[in-house]
């Protein structure tokens, strides 16, 4: 079945210059294992590809810089994504309503992944359990 990330994770995003920076947090360990396996840098880059402005994101040789990194933090049940060249030139240069990239995390939480039914059921149940004492 399909799971939307918002069902199993929470997230916050921010900016540094033209870089959007997203923290993605599973509510509990089975969800973290699922995120770590499925939410690759490539998947996130594909999902958010509209954020890159081709013109701005070339280096002096006219080549594309490496555009996205993922960092894993099992101690925090979290993945960090760093997306270079995605904020329309950066806050004070951006034409966008969200010039600070604060809502990029919400876009990531709308990502849907395909998960075998029994795994999805298990992670949803564990998430519900983890939230009982929030």
């Amino acid at each position: 079945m399909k799971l939307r990330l918002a069902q199993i994770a929470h997230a916050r995003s921010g900016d540094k210059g033209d870089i959007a920076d997203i923290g993605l947090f599973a509510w509990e360990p089975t969800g973290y294992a699922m995120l770590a396996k499925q939410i690759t840098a490539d998947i996130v880059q594909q999902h958010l590809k509209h954020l890159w402005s081709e013109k701005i994101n070339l280096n002096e040789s006219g080549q594309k810089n490496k555009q996205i990194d993922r960092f894993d933090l099992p101690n925090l049940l979290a993945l960090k994504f760093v997306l270079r060249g995605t904020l329309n030139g950066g806050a004070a240069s951006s034409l966008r309503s969200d010039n600070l990239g604060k809502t990029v995390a919400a876009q990531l939480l709308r990502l849907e992944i395909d998960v075998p039914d029994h795994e999805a059921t298990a992670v949803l149940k564990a998430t519900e359990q983890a939230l009982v004492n929030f």
Partner: protein
Amino acid sequence: MKRIRLTSGLGFYGDNWHPVLAAIERGDVDYVCSDHLAELTLAILQKDRLKDPNTGYTRDLVPMLTRLWPTASSRGVKFVLNAGGLNPRSAAEALQKLFAEKGWRARIAVVTGDNVLPLIEQIQLGGNDLQHMDTGAPIESVRDQIIFANAYLGAQPIAQALAKDADIVITGRVADAALFLGPLIFEFEWDAADWHRLAQGVTAGHLLECSGQGTGGNFGAAGVWQRIPDLAHIGFPIADVGHDGDVIICKAPDSGGRINFHTVRQQLLYEVHNPRAYVTPDVILDMSELELKDLGNDRVSVSGAIGTAAPNQLKIVAGYANGWMGHIVTGFCWPDVLRKANAAVNTIRLMMQEAELQYDELCVEFIGHNAFLGPHATPAEEDAINEIWLRMAIRTQDKKQADAFPRLFPWLALSGPPFMGGFHGIPPASQLIGLWPTLVPRRLVETQVSVDILK
């Protein structure tokens, strides 16, 4: 054993200081550490300073201290604030003037030396081409448009100011976490190479620097954010720190917000890029072994920060004039809102073409539909949409073109698609400022840093 309690002050220029007052009154804090400067803020302050050379600091400094100082001073609470922005000396003098008027006494220290604009030529002559940290481009491409350039200073000048018995320390650009690390270095006499303790201090500072984001504000969790209690009276985070760098994050009693594993880790990773090497001027922090332990009752302990030696270079962010934005917002009411907004966009595009308007980029957003979610907005049935706002913006190198752009819109009210409303005037062109992050050898900057007590 002595413990020190730091509270988050403001988290940005324009934040609310009532939670800071609560921390002073009920949080038993020793220091208020207040971060007024987002990366963007110097660009805003530069616009002020161009109009009046005595400005360039954040104007919330004086009203904030007017409100907080009487309560703080009776409890011996000290302040560290980067409200100096581009002009820390004028900020400190404005505060001094307030204190003179009120008959209040305080030792006010000012930290200067983060301004490196006058050094750029010298740095370039020394063979450093100040290449862009992220793209590698040389600074020559924007050299003539640079309007400010400031280094991120570390915690040592703040600790030095406190050692001079300052009650209030005003700085310009410093690393956000340094505002918090400075008092800890001073109080506990931590060595400048005590990487473990410094790393714990930086972690505490990072958790506090964004005020309410450390206690469940802006908590990005669908269906769960509602469980954060009483956001209207949110308590800003307080770090209770021991000599060995052990940290407990808590907040004032009877305040809103929530401190638990989830809210704290969401802030921990905020804007840090590589969590294994979060570079600050004082220490490089590795978060990969950090342990956040939920102690209950809005308390979380933080341990396991790994520190490695401070970098040999300091980060500079320069701002450069980067063209102009012309923009406009106008609303459309049911029926056919998306069709009508698209028709208006097409009309405007045609007019731009016919008027030969010069621009580099056009941004079109339907506020209320896709301005934030972009292609991930749920496609809407026309009849289900009550209303939307059309926002259009252009990027251009010419201010006149930017000013001309919104003037294409008013006539649509009588000669465009029906039921257009909420047109609230023509905004002036807005100057765009590009940010140029780069690195310089720290000694070049540090030799010009000074810490002075105002007479």
